């Protein structure tokens, strides 16, 4: 029976954003990442173009984190006190990009200084040629202080700087503009708030092809369904032609999944939770896969095994299926 497949004709498309600049472009990266550009819903190859595959970044810290799951600490034990070695290790296990989160305090327990932050970022850039995403500790004033110094010291590298929120976007956007970087704009799981922040950023004069949006997500079991649906709605709005939603999306399933009890605790939990390490990796992988299919362009993970599984899934999903009737 011949079937006429209903194809959605979308007037809009997602902007393309480039992370990382090679020597020819004024930076020192040996590879760059291009995300976005799609003209259809995730992996619907039969009705649109998906010029760039989604990518996976691995999260590293400037120093040994205090609150990570012991499983992660064990995995990265050999490099966990050395961000440069950690970045290199992340590159070796197949990450497409590195996401470095700066801490509030340095390894000596002192408040993180801009000098230390800059030195760390430079060491990471030296150790790995991958594009770099740098997040501040998540307190607006400290973020501003550290990220401005980092942006200036790495002019032209086309880093992604985050996290820009409604309360602190101005400083970060200004420094990204002055120093040729990209920013990630985070809003709390709401289509309108995401749009609003993008409008504010674009009003400052930063071209939108230098903005990635982070719609915020929750882990599997801890609110993932809200993030999942907001991402689907944002992507539908983008394809329908709403310019202020036409940005690639970055999400942090690694951060979310690894703070759940399922990942952090191995003893005294129900037997029905199964093997701890497997469960924790599955928690991160499954959170990531669900968000990948809701439209994520950059997924930030923490464990090499999850990375491997998500990369394999992306490869499979990026191959247009050879279906007779399609």
């Amino acid at each position, binding site marked *: 029976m011949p079937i006429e497949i*209903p194809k959605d004709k979308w007037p809009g498309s997602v902007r393309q954003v480039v992370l990382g600049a090679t020597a020819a472009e004024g930076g020192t990266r040996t590879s760059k990442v291009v995300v976005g550009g799609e003209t259809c819903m995730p992996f619907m190859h039969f009705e649109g173009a998906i010029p760039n595959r989604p990518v996976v970044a691995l999260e590293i810290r400037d120093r040994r984190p205090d609150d990570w799951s012991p499983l992660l600490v064990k995995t990265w034990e050999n490099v966990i006190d050395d961000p440069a070695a950690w970045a290199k290790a992340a590159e070796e296990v197949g990450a497409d990009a590195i996401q470095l989160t700066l801490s509030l305090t340095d390894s000596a327990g002192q408040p993180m200084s801009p000098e230390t932050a800059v030195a760390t970022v430079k060491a990471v850039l030296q150790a790995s040629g991958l594009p770099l995403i740098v997040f501040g500790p998540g307190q607006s004033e400290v973020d501003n202080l550290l990220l401005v110094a980092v942006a200036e010291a790495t002019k032209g590298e086309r880093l992604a700087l985050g996290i820009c929120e409604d309360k602190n976007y101005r400083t970060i956007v200004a420094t990204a503009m002055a120093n040729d970087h990209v920013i990630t704009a985070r809003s709390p799981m709401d289509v309108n708030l995401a749009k609003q922040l993008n409008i504010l950023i674009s009003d400052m004069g930063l071209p939108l092809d230098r903005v990635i949006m982070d719609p915020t997500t929750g882990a599997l079991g801890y609110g993932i*369904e809200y993030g999942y*649906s907001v991402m689907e709605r944002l992507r539908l709005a983008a394809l329908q032609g709403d310019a202020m939603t036409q940005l690639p999306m970055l999400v942090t399933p690694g951060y979310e999944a690894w703070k759940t009890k399922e990942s952090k605790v191995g003893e005294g939990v129900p037997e029905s939770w199964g093997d701890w390490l497997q469960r924790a990796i*599955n928690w991160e*992988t499954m959170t990531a896969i669900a968000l990948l299919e809701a439209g994520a362009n950059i997924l930030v993970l923490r464990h090499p095994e999850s990375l491997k599984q998500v990369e394999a899934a992306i490869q499979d999903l990026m191959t247009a299926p050879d279906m007779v009737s399609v």
Partner: protein
Amino acid sequence: MALSGIQIYKLLPQTNCKECGFPTCLAFAMKLAAKQVELSACPYVTEESIALLAESSAPPIRLVSLKSDGYETKAGNEVVLFRHEKTFYNKPGLFVKVVDTESPEAIKAKISAADRYVVNYVGIELTVDGFAIEAASGDPEKFSAAVKLAREASKRPLILVSRDPSIISAGLKALEAGESALIHGADKSNWEVMAALAQEHKAALAVISTDLETSADLTEKIRGKGVEDLAIDPDTTGLGAMLTFNTIARRMALKKNFKPLGFPIIVFPKDLVAATQAISKYAGFVVIDDFKPDEVYPLLVLRQNIYTDPQKPIQVQPGVYEINNPNSEAPVLVTTNFSITYFSVANEVEGSGLPAWLMVCDAEGMSVLTAWAAGKFDAERIAKSVKGSDLASKVSPKRVVLPGHVAVLSGELEEELPGWDVRVGPREAVDIPKFLKEAL
């Protein structure tokens, strides 16, 4: 999708004889479209029109239910492509597969373990739904023995997996009376015999094909034989192909009311990643090879999350919950009535073995920070909840513990609750036991 009044009018006699009680056939058609009258009020509709109208009022994706002694698993009846448009209704059945070439002990052990499996997620007991028995032996007797073993180990619904009708027939005969299994399945070469078996045993039948046209052809032919409870299998383990197949089938059913693809989808994912996709992207039955709690637990949670009604966060009743028989010296812990929040906290306190009064405030079903950001969980509200309870007369010393994420509220809460010692607890629930032991 239901027909419009005009479309229905075209199927009526168009004689305006008024016997239905309406002045014209069109007026009657309009009432029919609005589901305000019964078609039987018109004595002159043709059999053919009756069939067409019945068809159009059927749900776009047929509800298929597998039943066995005390159990029922339903799939289908979905009405949207994206959960935010309304909600997804029938959670895909999670089935664990056994193969008839495994030893009887192994089959029984696997099924018993999966059958007993229960995991608690936010107060809901989650379990697997049933089992798929695959005939790898090629031997009807072996298959029939495996089905019997399954029935000894579990009463949950079964899926019988073989393309060979003589094997399926042996399996169906081994089932208990009154149950409806799913046969997997029919293809171009065996569909006729399989349809007859499905008919005879009141079983549902899955059609298997990598291409949608063949699937549609098969369901039409089988429906022609009177079997209506069907499922479709994209017959692929690739993520991309499965996603495309499932999406197009769902779209055809919902947007074009294309009946030949209006059936639940059954998939046999090759690994956990494929099973994850199957749950969020449109499968009605998911058959997994291995029974591993570290995989089954997150799959059941994902299914629960994706099928939550977006309009209604799962909430618990506000009020005071007593954990581990609190006495007057036990502290009062404050939290919100979002069920994930409540259970994260309650489980930790319970697990610590230490007594506490858990004051669950009405925060309209929102998490701690969400409610705080939305103004539904502030010092005033918390104080009101505490005062509205009889905790002040029950505890001494009067200690109230705030979630670490809303430490900022402590000053204000001290003002609102004179005589109470306001403490700030840890940010994450996992750290509550340590806090109860050491800091209080």
